[in-house]
């Protein structure tokens, strides 16, 4: 038990700092969301306006634009398929590394991590030339293959500790009951580790959804993802209605935020494992 605290000015200051940090964490985003509901006259004001007549024009403009909808479609397909490939190839490999130790296990883990060291620009330039030569430049297929490198390695990296934290006794009991190696993976390890695994998969999705540089270099018109489309909206100069830009930022930010709960649960489970 901790001794009761005396109320001291230091604690009060500490609480104020934390409250301010919370404000800083969410206010810029809330302000953007608010701006997406404003007419231009209410945004371009020297004194920020909190009271205004809301409009849905920006949002309906964004949703009505073909380029935005194509970007959304491309993002969903490219990220969805890449994550699926990451799951299919990454999870079994992670399980094998976690449960069947061999002398390469450490090297494999380091190799998977080291893929993260590669500067994206160093990967994107040669890939652009390769896809151009194969006639696949500016296609979703090229983007999916490139993103798979990201999703497989990240899912593997995060799933290895998740599988390791499954109690060995559970799996051994299943072997005694006559389960084969594969059915232990399917029926025991996967379901028991599911919570952490979902966190790992969600993390890989957020990573590729937010990816920008590779998508920028591997697409010119057909395969543009939502981040690229959103960034282009801003390049039309200051004459573009700012409300529309804000609305596109909100649209782009919503999918990753849907995973807020899953990812914070994942974080908790990672550190609960460490404690025990």
């Amino acid at each position, binding site marked *: 038990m901790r001794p009761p605290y005396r109320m001291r000015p230091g604690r009060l200051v500490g609480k104020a700092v934390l409250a301010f940090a919370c404000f800083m964490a969410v206010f810029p985003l809330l302000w953007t969301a608010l701006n997406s509901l404003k007419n231009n006259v209410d945004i371009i004001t020297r*004194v920020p306006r909190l009271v205004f007549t809301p409009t849905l024009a920006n949002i309906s403009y964004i949703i009505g634009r073909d380029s935005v909808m194509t970007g959304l479609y491309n993002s969903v397909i490219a990220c969805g398929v890449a994550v699926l490939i990451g799951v299919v190839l990454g999870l*079994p490999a992670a399980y094998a590394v976690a449960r069947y130790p061999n002398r390469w296990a450490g090297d494999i883990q380091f190799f998977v991590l080291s893929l993260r060291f590669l500067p994206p620009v160093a990967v994107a330039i040669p890939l652009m030339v390769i896809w151009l030569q194969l006639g696949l430049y500016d296609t979703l297929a090229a983007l999916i293959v490139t993103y798979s*490198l990201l999703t497989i390695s990240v899912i593997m990296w995060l799933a290895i500790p998740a599988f390791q934290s499954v109690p060995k006794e559970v799996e051994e009991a299943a072997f005694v009951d006559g389960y084969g190696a594969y059915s232990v993976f399917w029926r025991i390890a996967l379901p028991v580790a599911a919570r952490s695994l979902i966190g790992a998969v969600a993390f890989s999705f957020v990573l590729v959804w937010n990816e920008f540089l590779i998508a920028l270099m591997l697409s010119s018109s057909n395969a543009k993802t939502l981040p690229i489309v959103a960034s282009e909206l801003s390049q039309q100069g200051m004459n573009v209605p700012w409300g529309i830009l804000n609305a596109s930022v909100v649209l782009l930010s919503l999918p990753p935020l849907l995973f807020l709960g899953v990812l914070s649960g994942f974080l908790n489970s990672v550190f609960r494992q460490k404690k025990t």
Partner: protein
Amino acid sequence: MPRRSSLPVTFIVPTLVILLILSMVPTLYAIVIALQNRELSSTAYSYVWLSNFYDLFFDRRFLNAVWVSVKWEVVTVVATMAVAIGLGVLMFEVASPRLRNIYCLLFIVPVLLPRVSAAFVWKFAYHPLYGIATYPYRLLTGGLIFDPLSKPATALFAVASVDVWQWGLFFAVIVLKLLETLPPQPIEAARLDHARHWQIHAYVTLPMLKAPLISLMFVKMIESLRSFDLIYVMTRGGPGVATETLDMYAFSQGFIESGKVSYASAMAVLMMIATVITFTMLWKRVQA
């Protein structure tokens, strides 16, 4: 575990083969391109061997980009760790468990945002006339104009602040969780010795967490290499070349200004060699 099973082979080999192909083909090809003189505008090319690398050493913009990248790396890593440890310790000290949960949830919001979104949000906020972040300055000075993104002295820090906004708050949550995993006895003992709160953390808890904190810093160093999105949206490397990092310069050489793909690739290869060597050495030390 059964002794003999085909599982490790069937599960690991296909995945590793695919990962090796997907990573080695572009990596090796990047080196090949760097030894050529490819340009976007033409399909003809020949091998020029090391002349791209030789040119780089006399390219003042490249040397500037190296310097900007180093500054970016140091500023973002140090500031992120400072914010994370400061807020993490504060939460540990003054927040009740319920409040901690709320803080943790809110503090992960920024890092989940696409970098492009975060960059936009703050680009508006830093707008000299209408921005919400520059409003307090306008209010206090009676309408003076402060434009952080277009001043060479402040632009890098303004962009870096967005990076710290995303990662510092997120890492604060991790620091708190790390503090929560510590056994309470040493902290109790220090309290009984009348140690002050900051002393407990400076001399007891943080030294106990040295290894995970170094790993955390390592992760941030890797993530800081991905500065491109923020800089591309917020400043495009400007004003002048004040925020032009290596990836930004490689991109503009390869695609915006001159289409010198090989020259850009030479830059990327140098970056790759530097980061792979640095991080491999650091990682081995962290693990040891």
